[in-house]
């Protein structure tokens, strides 16, 4: 809004933004999962099914014992939730603005709010599934995670990393819709390299240097350290990750600011 004569207080703006994001979360849940109560379960079931499938495929390759099954479940299924979150947030970013265009007629609804609302849903879902998976692993005889807080921390960093990229993707999509195909292809190609299938220490030195350029690898290392403690040797650099979070956030927010003025409402 340009030059309102009575400038609203910062706290009122914050309250308004919380209200808008809350309303958007409820709205998004309705359109995505329908109005039936059972629909809400789907957000938990989808990652659960996908994660369990990967665990089964990996388990069936090795000796088919309960022990290897549980170990693969612990490593791959739980790790896969973070990839699911990354992919979900970034893939959806291409449709976020188009799907909500009508709501932009309300001046308090800002473009970043549309993204934050979706990311909250994705985060709550993935955190819920992660907790269920961890409890399931313990129930099946696995060890209690070394540091649950560190696993939550990894989830939070994955949210921030994906969010920055999603804001950028959203801003670019308003100018160039072809990006959608690229983003989808990219998020699938990322799967083998993102860190879900390996620990850095398992790789030869020359490969380690390469994969450590990939920001998601650092998050998976952090997750695994929280999950397995001293049983793994984790390699990560939070400073490097912070750069990958801050720079895309700045570029994305600036891009959305410019986009708001350009997008036609009809």
């Amino acid at each position, binding site marked *: *809004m*340009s*030059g*309102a*004569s*009575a400038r609203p207080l910062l706290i009122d703006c914050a309250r*308004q933004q919380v*209200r*808008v994001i*809350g*309303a958007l979360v*409820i*709205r998004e849940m*309705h*359109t995505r999962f329908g*109005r039936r109560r059972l629909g809400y379960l789907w957000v938990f079931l989808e990652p659960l099914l996908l994660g369990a499938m990967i665990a089964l495929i990996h388990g069936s390759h090795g000796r088919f014992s309960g022990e290897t099954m549980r170990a693969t479940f612990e490593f791959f299924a739980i790790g896969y939730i973070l990839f699911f979150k990354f992919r979900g947030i970034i893939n959806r970013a291409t449709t976020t603005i188009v799907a*909500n265009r*009508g*709501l*932009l*007629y*309300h*001046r*308090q*609804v800002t473009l970043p709010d549309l993204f934050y609302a979706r990311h909250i849903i994705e985060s709550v879902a993935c955190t819920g599934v992660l907790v269920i998976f961890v409890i399931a692993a313990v129930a099946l005889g696995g060890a209690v995670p070394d540091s649950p807080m560190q696993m939550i921390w990894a989830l939070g960093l994955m949210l921030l990393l994906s969010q920055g990229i999603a804001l950028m993707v959203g801003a670019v999509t308003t100018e160039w819709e072809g990006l959608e195909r690229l983003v989808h292809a990219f998020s699938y190609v990322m799967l083998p390299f993102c860190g879900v299938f390996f620990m850095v220490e398992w790789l030869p030195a020359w490969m380690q240097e390469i994969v450590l350029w990939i920001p998601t690898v650092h998050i998976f290392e952090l997750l695994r350290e929280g999950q397995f403690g001293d049983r793994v040797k984790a390699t990560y650099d939070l400073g490097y990750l912070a750069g990958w979070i801050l720079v895309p956030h700045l570029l994305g927010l600036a891009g959305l600011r410019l986009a*708001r*003025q350009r997008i036609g*409402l*009809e």
Partner: protein
Amino acid sequence: MLELLGVEKSYPLLAGRKHVLRGVNATFRRGERVGVLGRNGSGKSTLVRILGGVEAPTHGTVRRSMSVSWPIGMAAGFQPALSGSDNARFIARIYDRPVKETVEFVESFAELGEYLRMPVNTYSSGMRSRLGLAISLAVEFDCFLVDEALAVGDTKFGRAFGARLQRAGLILVTHQPSLVRQLCTRAAVLDQGTLTFYEDIDEALATYNSL
């Protein structure tokens, strides 16, 4: 009060820019009912979006010291896949109004019957504008910003809407002179990117008809 000071708006074209508004100055006071007349393509919708704070002007200033509704029109402000009542709930939440009362008001006012629980994309244009107007009335703005497609007239809804408006301000942007005569106390004509006010409605209508 809602003020426009030297507002200009232009959009990029393949070559150069299209100048839609070329320096609009206007003051809308609280409780005033103003009709803005403009031919198709004269920049009416652009003006409404700038008044509503949905779009920023290229140059100039907008000052808003009363609550102004969103631009109420056919599709504006709705999520088409959601039902009318879900849309009402969403709007109540973002404007910090009680959700239940808002839906009840819309139910009694918009005359949508069963359709209130159906997706908005199944509505006729008249139903959409009734929904939009009913929700905005429930939020109780100081000034209602209405863009075309106003299905009032001498219906039960039209009379109820008119009665409500006696207590609130209105900026109605339209190409239908009859609506301005019916609802407004002051009129302006938008032409060639400038807005000219007339204290006398007949004078505004005569100017508009000669365009």
